[in-house]
C-alpha cells in the first residue's frame, strides 16, 4: 500500500465539500452527485485499506507539527464504519432533501464533516486530531443551524457545550505533550497517575462530549426537533459516537493505560451507568418519535462508556461492539422516523397509530431495530450488551444492575413506541399513507439486514474487527463471541425483557392505549415531580451554566462599565495626545528633519562610545 493512499479518505470528501460550496449556485444537483461519488470513493478506499497498516506524513505547520496519519488495526475498522455511514447519509439525503433549498449547503457541510471525522480517526498527532476535532465541530454547527428557523439556538448550544469540552481537551493535550515529551499519538504511553490523571480526564471530557454522553448531552434532544433529518439520522447515532468512542477507547487503552479498579475507571463506569439510566428514563416518557430516539442515542452511549470504563478487554470489546451495533440500529431507527415523518407528515406519537398495515416494510425494519436495541437474542444488540454486562458484573454488581435496568426501560420504551406508531388502531387521517419510497427504504433494510447478520453471525465483527483492534494477547483466551458462557447473564437479560413485556401489558391495560404504556411510571408517586422538572429542563447543566454566566456577565458588565469609562477617557485621550505630539514634531521643514536625524546620530554615538 502506498502510504499516501491513507490521505484519500480525508482529502477526497474535503475537496468534494469545497467543490460543492463553489458549484452550489451553478449546478443545483452537484451536492448529491459529488457527495455520493466522494463517499463511495472514500468507502472503497477505506475497504481497501482495511486490515493494513501504514503511516503517511506531510510537512505541516513547522515546529514539529507534522501532518501525520497512521492506520492501524485500531482505527482501520472505525475508518471503514465512518465511510460507510457517510455514504449512507449521502444516499439517504440525496433522496430526502431532493429539491430543498438547504440541500447544497447540507451536502457541503456533510462532506466537510466526513473528511474531518475521517481525519480525526486516522490522525496520529494530537494537535492534528484537535484540528479535525474542531473542524468537525464547525461543520456540525453548520449542519444543525441550517435546520428549522430557530435551529441556530440549538446549534449555538451544541457549539458551546462541545466547544467548552474541546477547550478541556486542548488543555489535556498540552499536559499530555508535556508529560510524554511528544505529541505523536503512537509514541505516547502514559500511566494514569498523578497529574496525568487530570490530563486523562480532560481528554476524556473531549471524547465523552463528542459521543454525547451525560452531562454533555443536552443539545441532542433539541437537535432532534430542529436539525435536518439526515443529520439526526447519522450524526448523534453513528458518526459522532464512532469518533468520540474511538477516541475514548484509544485514550484508555493506548495513550494511557487505564487501570482496572482505579478510581478513574470507577468514575467512567459511573458516568456510563448514570447516562444509561437517566437518559432512558427520559426516553420512556417522550411523546415524539424523534425525541424519544434522541434520548436513546444518549442512553446507549452509557453502555459504551461503561464498557470502556471497566478497563477489561471484554468490556472494551463490548463497548466498541456496542458502538458499532448502536451506529447501525440507531441510524436505522432514525431512518424509520424519517420515513414516518415523510409519509404521515408528523412524528408526534399522539397523532400516529396503526401504520404497520400501511407501511409494512418500515414496520418490519422498525421491529428488527427495536429488538436489536432492546437486546433480544439473537439480534446484535444482545451480544454487545452481554459483553458489557459481563465486564460490569466483574467490577461490581451495582453497575450490572444499572445496565440491566437500562435494558428493561429500553425494551419498555420501544414496546411503547412501536405500539403507538405501528400497531393499535389506525387513525382515519392516515388512510392514504403509502409505503416509503425505495431510495429511503433501501438503506433502512440494508442496515436491518446488517443488524441481523451481526447478531446471528457475531463472530464476524468481533473476530474480524474488534479482536485485532484490542490485540489478541489482551484477550488472554477470553471467549468474546457467540452466546455468553455465563448463563446467569442470559437469564438476567431474559428476565428483564420479560418484565418489560409484562410492564407494557399492564400499562396498556391501565391507560387503554399503546402510547400510555409508560404513564404509570411517568406519574408514579415521587417520580412525576422529578419528571416534570426534567421536562422543564431544570436539570440541564447547560441552562444552569448559562444562567450562571448571565449573572456573572451582569456583574462583570457593571464592573466593566467603570473600567470602560476609564479606558474610553484615559486611553483614547492618551493616544490622541501622544499622536498629536508625534505629529507636531513633523513640522514640515526639512531642516527640522535633518536636525532630528543629527540629534539621533549624536545620541547613538554617545551610546556607543560613552
Amino acid at each position, binding site marked *: 500500500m502506498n502510504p499516501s493512499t491513507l490521505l484519500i479518505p480525508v482529502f477526497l470528501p474535503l475537496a468534494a465539500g469545497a467543490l460543492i460550496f463553489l458549484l452550489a449556485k451553478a449546478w443545483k444537483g452537484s451536492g448529491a452527485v459529488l457527495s455520493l461519488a466522494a463517499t463511495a470513493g472514500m468507502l472503497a478506499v477505506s475497504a481497501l485499506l482495511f486490515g493494513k497498516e501504514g503511516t503517511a506524513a506531510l510537512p505541516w505547520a513547522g515546529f514539529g507539527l507534522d501532518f501525520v496519519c497512521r492506520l492501524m488495526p485500531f482505527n482501520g475498522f472505525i475508518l471503514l464504519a465512518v465511510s460507510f455511514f457517510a455514504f449512507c447519509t449521502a444516499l439517504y439525503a440525496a433522496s430526502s432533501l431532493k429539491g430543498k433549498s438547504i440541500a447544497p449547503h447540507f451536502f457541503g457541510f456533510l462532506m466537510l464533516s466526513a473528511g474531518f471525522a475521517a481525519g480525526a480517526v486516522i490522525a496520529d498527532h494530537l494537535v492534528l486530531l484537535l484540528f479535525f476535532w474542531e473542524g468537525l465541530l464547525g461543520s456540525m454547527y453548520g449542519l444543525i443551524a441550517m435546520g428549522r428557523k430557530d435551529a441556530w439556538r440549538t446549534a449555538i448550544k451544541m457549539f458551546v457545550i462541545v466547544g467548552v469540552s474541546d477547550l478541556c481537551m486542548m488543555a489535556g493535550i498540552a499536559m499530555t505533550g508535556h508529560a510524554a515529551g511528544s505529541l505523536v499519538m503512537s509514541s505516547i504511553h502514559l500511566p494514569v497517575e498523578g497529574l496525568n490523571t487530570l490530563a486523562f480526564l480532560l481528554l476524556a471530557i473531549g471524547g465523552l462530549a463528542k459521543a454525547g454522553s451525560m452531562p454533555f448531552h443536552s443539545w441532542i434532544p433539541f437537535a432532534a426537533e430542529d436539525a435536518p433529518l439526515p443529520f439526526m439520522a447519522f450524526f448523534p447515532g453513528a458518526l459522532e459516537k464512532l469518533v468520540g468512542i474511538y477516541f475514548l477507547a484509544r485514550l484508555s487503552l493506548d495513550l494511557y493505560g487505564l487501570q482496572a479498579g482505579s478510581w478513574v475507571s470507577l468514575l467512567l463506569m459511573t458516568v456510563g451507568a448514570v447516562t444509561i439510566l437517566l437518559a432512558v428514563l427520559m426516553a420512556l416518557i417522550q411523546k415524539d418519535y424523534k425525541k424519544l430516539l434522541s434520548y436513546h442515542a444518549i442512553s446507549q452511549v452509557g453502555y459504551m462508556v461503561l464498557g470502556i470504563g471497566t478497563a477489561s478487554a471484554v468490556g472494551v470489546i463490548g463497548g466498541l461492539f456496542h458502538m458499532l451495533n448502536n451506529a447501525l440500529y440507531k441510524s436505522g431507527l432514525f431512518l424509520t422516523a424519517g420515513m414516518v415523518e415523510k409519509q404521515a407528515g408528523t412524528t408526534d406519537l399522539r397523532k400516529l397509530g396503526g401504520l404497520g398495515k400501511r407501511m409494512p416494510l418500515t414496520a418490519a425494519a422498525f421491529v428488527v431495530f427495536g429488538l436489536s436495541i432492546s437486546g433480544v437474542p439473537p439480534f446484535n444488540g444482545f451480544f454487545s450488551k452481554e459483553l458489557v454486562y459481563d465486564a460490569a458484573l466483574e467490577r461490581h454488581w451495582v453497575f450490572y444492575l444499572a445496565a440491566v435496568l437500562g435494558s428493561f426501560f429500553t425494551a419498555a420504551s420501544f414496546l411503547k413506541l412501536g405500539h403507538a406508531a405501528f400497531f393499535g388502531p389506525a387513525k382515519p387521517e392516515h388512510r392514504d399513507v403509502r409505503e416509503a419510497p425505495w431510495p429511503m427504504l433501501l438503506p433502512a433494510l440494508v442496515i436491518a439486514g446488517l443488524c441481523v447478520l451481526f447478531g446471528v453471525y457475531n463472530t464476524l465483527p468481533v473476530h474480524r474487527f474488534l479482536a485485532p483492534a484490542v490485540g489478541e494477547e489482551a484477550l488472554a483466551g477470553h471467549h468474546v463471541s457467540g452466546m455468553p458462557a455465563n448463563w446467569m447473564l442470559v437469564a438476567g437479560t431474559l428476565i428483564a425483557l420479560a418484565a418489560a413485556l409484562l410492564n407494557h401489558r399492564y400499562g396498556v391495560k391501565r391507560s387503554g392505549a399503546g402510547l400510555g404504556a409508560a404513564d404509570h411510571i411517568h406519574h408514579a408517586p415521587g417520580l412525576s415531580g422529578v419528571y416534570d422538572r426534567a421536562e422543564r429542563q431544570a436539570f440541564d447543566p447547560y441552562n444552569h451554566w448559562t444562567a450562571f454566566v448571565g449573572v456573572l456577565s451582569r456583574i462583570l458588565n457593571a464592573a466593566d462599565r467603570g473600567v470602560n469609562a476609564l479606558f474610553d477617557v484615559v486611553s483614547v485621550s492618551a493616544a490622541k495626545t501622544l499622536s498629536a505630539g508625534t505629529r507636531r514634531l513633523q513640522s514640515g521643514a526639512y*531642516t527640522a528633519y535633518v536636525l532630528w536625524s543629527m540629534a539621533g546620530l549624536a545620541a547613538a554615538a554617545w551610546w556607543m562610545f560613552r
Partner: protein
Amino acid sequence: MTVDLILLGLLVLAALWAVLSVRLMMSVIGLAAVSVAVSLLMFRLDAPYAAMFELSVCAGLISVIFFVAISFTKRLTAEDIRTHRKERLRKTVWLPFLLAGLAILLVARLKSPGFAPAPDPGGDVRTLLWGGRHLDLIGQIVTLLAGAFGVVVLFKEKNR
C-alpha cells in the same frame, strides 16, 4: 610643508566664503574654489585621477549647473541677499560646529593613529576600476541614465 599649509588654508577660506557670502553667485564661486582646493589636495595625497575628475567635473560641470539654476531664478537675488544676511546667524549656528568638534575630539580620543605615509601604492586605479569594479561602473551608467530621465521629466514645462 608650505604648499600643504597654503592649500589647507585655502580650503577653509573657500568654504567660509561659500557659506558666508551674501550673494548666491559668490557662494557658487566659493564652492568651485573648495573643489579646486580639494582637487589640489588630492594631488598632494597621491590621487591624481580622482583629482582630475574633481577638477573637471565638480569645479567645472557642477558650477555650470548652479549657474544655470541661478540664471533661471535671477530676479530673486535681491530678496535672497536680504534674507541670507539675517539667516547667517540663526540659532542653530552652533550645532554643526559642535558636531565637527565632537567628531574631531572623537578621532583624537581614538588615540590619533599618527599614520605614517603609506608605502608606494601597489595597484593602479585604472586596473582596479576597469578590472575589479565592473559593478560600480554599471551602477554609474544606470545612475546617469536616471539622471537623463530626470532631465527629460523634470525640466519639461508642466502641461496644464
